[in-house]
């Protein structure tokens, strides 16, 4: 995977050449796994205990009762709420329960004795414990999923878990909590979309569908003034959140944050905020004010998301496919070129050298000998063009010097300052495919600078050692315009795209950045 980013400021070469994957990162990884494991165990335990306590201790969950005259059939063993002393077998005289569940009063009779039980102070506590329990259980479950590497299911599990928690919270008489949970379950897929740009269209459509149904149900209930309107308010809140999140994250942030397929550049954070914040505020405001017109707009916006995503995904897929095809072609071409250059060197050039030596012994063949020399020079030129022999015989650093030498013209000065820490002994150089890839990247970058950027100076700076290669090609041309790069890549001038592909093929990092002051292509590889 290529890790490209836009660099506003050119970092110093020392920063640039830091060791890419130090040992401490491995340790951090192990620590993270450990922390995740601890979280999983702790959260699952805490969540389980909290859920059991609150459910078991809650009046409605612990006692089976109905209207006056019925008998209390069963009381929860914990009997928290029934500290007044209700037992199974008591007859219910009256049950007063107000809108706020913390306010109930139960009067029962047993063996002629009258019992009055009211909500205890900790009823409220119980209601807060339940969401905590559910959240903790969910967190634990998610941690387990992440720990086992099932990342793609984590968001779906969170969404489903939160949805399942809604009825429990409603039963516990916690409408605020259930609204929050609903909102959370709506946000989970939105976050998922943001993290997984290649989310299947079907999943995207399904998620959008849930949001639409929620909004539609709310609208019907409101317009028809149904009694179901009240609980629908909660659903509306969730739908509004869902819509806002999906629209903002799915349709604005994700496409903006994705790498540009040709240059790998991402927009600056400020650009994204400039678009996302006003869009989010507008949509959110419309949703919260509950205007039918606002809902209609939200509706349309949500409908537009899958379409946008589909278009975007299809485009990304096309790019990917083209990449794969190009890559195969690139490799085949390189193999072919190397083979041809080898053949030219091994057969005709050697034969010519031998023949020239023999012909030289004949004074009358002087003109012919010179002709053959010219032919040999031409063949040398072709072989060098196909694959610079310096690269194979001497290594990357001399090859980059050779590149600078041959690319320099009266108009463009190409200079190379490459520190060579290699040796010609076996194992003293980076792998051949790395040398070739970096050389071709440099060649492409220099060609771009000379051809398109109208640069006067091109500088190759870097270092080559057996396990590490770093190279930066900078020019003082008119810089790289993203739109231009895109257009160029569409027309088949895949300079930047091919740089990226070559870097990907050897698992090197590449930075391509441009400003009006010039372009900089930096590539970094480490064993």
């Amino acid at each position, binding site marked *: 995977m290529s890790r490209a980013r836009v660099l506003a400021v050119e970092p110093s070469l020392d920063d640039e050449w830091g060791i890419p994957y130090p040992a401490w990162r491995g340790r951090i990884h192990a620590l993270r796994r450990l922390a995740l494991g601890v979280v999983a165990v702790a959260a699952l335990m805490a969540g389980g205990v909290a859920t059991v306590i609150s459910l078991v201790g809650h009046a409605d969950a612990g006692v089976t009762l109905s209207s006056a005259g019925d008998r209390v059939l069963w009381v929860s063993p914990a009997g928290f709420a029934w500290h007044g002393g209700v037992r199974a077998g008591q007859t219910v005289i009256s049950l007063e329960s107000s809108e706020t569940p913390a306010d109930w009063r139960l009067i029962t009779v047993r063996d002629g004795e009258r019992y009055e039980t009211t909500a205890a102070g900790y009823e409220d506590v119980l209601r807060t414990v339940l969401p905590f329990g559910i959240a903790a259980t969910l967190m634990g479950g998610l941690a387990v999923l992440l720990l086992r590497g099932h990342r793609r299911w984590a968001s779906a599990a969170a969404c489903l878990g939160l949805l399942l928690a809604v009825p429990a919270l409603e039963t516990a008489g916690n409408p605020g909590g259930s609204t929050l949970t609903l909102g959370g379950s709506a946000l989970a897929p939105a976050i998922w979309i943001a993290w997984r740009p290649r989310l299947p269209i079907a999943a995207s459509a399904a998620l959008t569908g849930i949001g639409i149904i929620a909004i539609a149900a709310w609208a019907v209930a409101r317009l028809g003034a149904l009694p179901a309107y009240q609980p629908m308010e909660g659903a509306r809140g969730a739908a509004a959140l869902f819509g806002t999140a999906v629209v903002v994250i799915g349709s604005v942030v994700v496409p903006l944050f994705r790498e540009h397929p040709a240059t790998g550049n991402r927009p600056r954070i400020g650009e994204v905020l400039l678009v996302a914040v006003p869009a989010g505020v507008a949509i959110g405001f419309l949703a919260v004010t509950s205007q039918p017109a606002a809902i209609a707009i939200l509706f349309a916006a949500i409908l537009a998301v899958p379409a946008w995503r589909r278009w975007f995904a299809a485009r990304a897929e096309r790019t990917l496919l083209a990449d794969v095809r190009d890559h195969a072609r690139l490799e085949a071409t390189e193999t072919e070129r190397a083979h041809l250059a080898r053949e030219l*060197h091994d057969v005709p050039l050697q034969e010519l*050298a*031998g023949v020239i*030596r023999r012909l*030289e*012994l004949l004074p009358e063949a002087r003109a012919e000998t010179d002709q053959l020399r010219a032919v040999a020079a031409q063949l040398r030129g072709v072989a*060098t063009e196909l694959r610079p*022999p*310096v690269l194979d015989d001497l290594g990357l650093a001399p090859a980059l010097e050779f590149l600078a030498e041959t690319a320099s013209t009266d108009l463009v000065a190409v200079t190379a300052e490459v520190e060579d820490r290699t040796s*010609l002994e076996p194992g003293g150089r980076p792998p051949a495919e790395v040398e070739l890839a970096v050389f071709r990247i440099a060649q492409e970058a220099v060609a771009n600078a000379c051809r398109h950027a109208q640069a006067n100076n091109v500088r190759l700076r870097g270092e080559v050692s057996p396990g590490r290669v770093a190279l930066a090609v900078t020019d003082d041309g008119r810089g790289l315009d993203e739109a231009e790069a895109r257009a160029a890549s569409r027309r088949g001038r895949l300079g930047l795209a091919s740089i990226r592909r070559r870097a990907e093929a050897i698992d090197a990092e590449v930075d391509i950045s441009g400003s009006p002051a010039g372009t900089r292509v930096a590539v970094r590889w480490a064993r």
Partner: protein
Amino acid sequence: MSIRIGIVDDHPVVVGGLAAALDAVDGFEVVDRAGSIREAEGLLARDGLGVVLMDVRLPDGNGLELLARTEGSRRVAVIVISSFETTQYVAAAVRFGAQGFVLKTAPLDEVVEAVRRVATGGSAFSAGQLREGLRGPIRLRPRERDVLRRVLAGQSNDEIAAGLRTSRKTVEKNLSELFRRFGVASRLELGLRAEREAWLEIEPR
């Protein structure tokens, strides 16, 4: 006494042609041949050879690598022969202690001249090759050239300092910088290399 020549090349047509051409020269005698790095190792260690002409690309390795490996130990002067001539090849040949560099298709006169010069203890790099090939590594600053010129003239550090109207410390600094850059340990060694590789003929930077 004729000049005894060894040829390292894996291509029979090249070896045959070169050997025939050189044998025909008065005072030259091709006495040894090698077609691989392995054989060349033996050839370089042997006594009695005057000059070895060595190819870069051999079936089991790189002739320049062999030069680098045997730089301190070989007893024979080497001229690199190659199908390609770029400044980088010449620079590598100089760096690894070869005495000359000749293109395989170069006119025979050039080859003969190179062998003669090398056989008599000289260097067969042309001024052009040195100028191009050593431009990067051996490009001295004007001050360094002044110091080097006086070192070659046998002056002491004090004399150099007086001549250049500078302090003895500065001269010492210049010299130790040159020692470090070219990996030499003494002014004698520096002078020998500078002479052999004609550093002062290379344009200053």
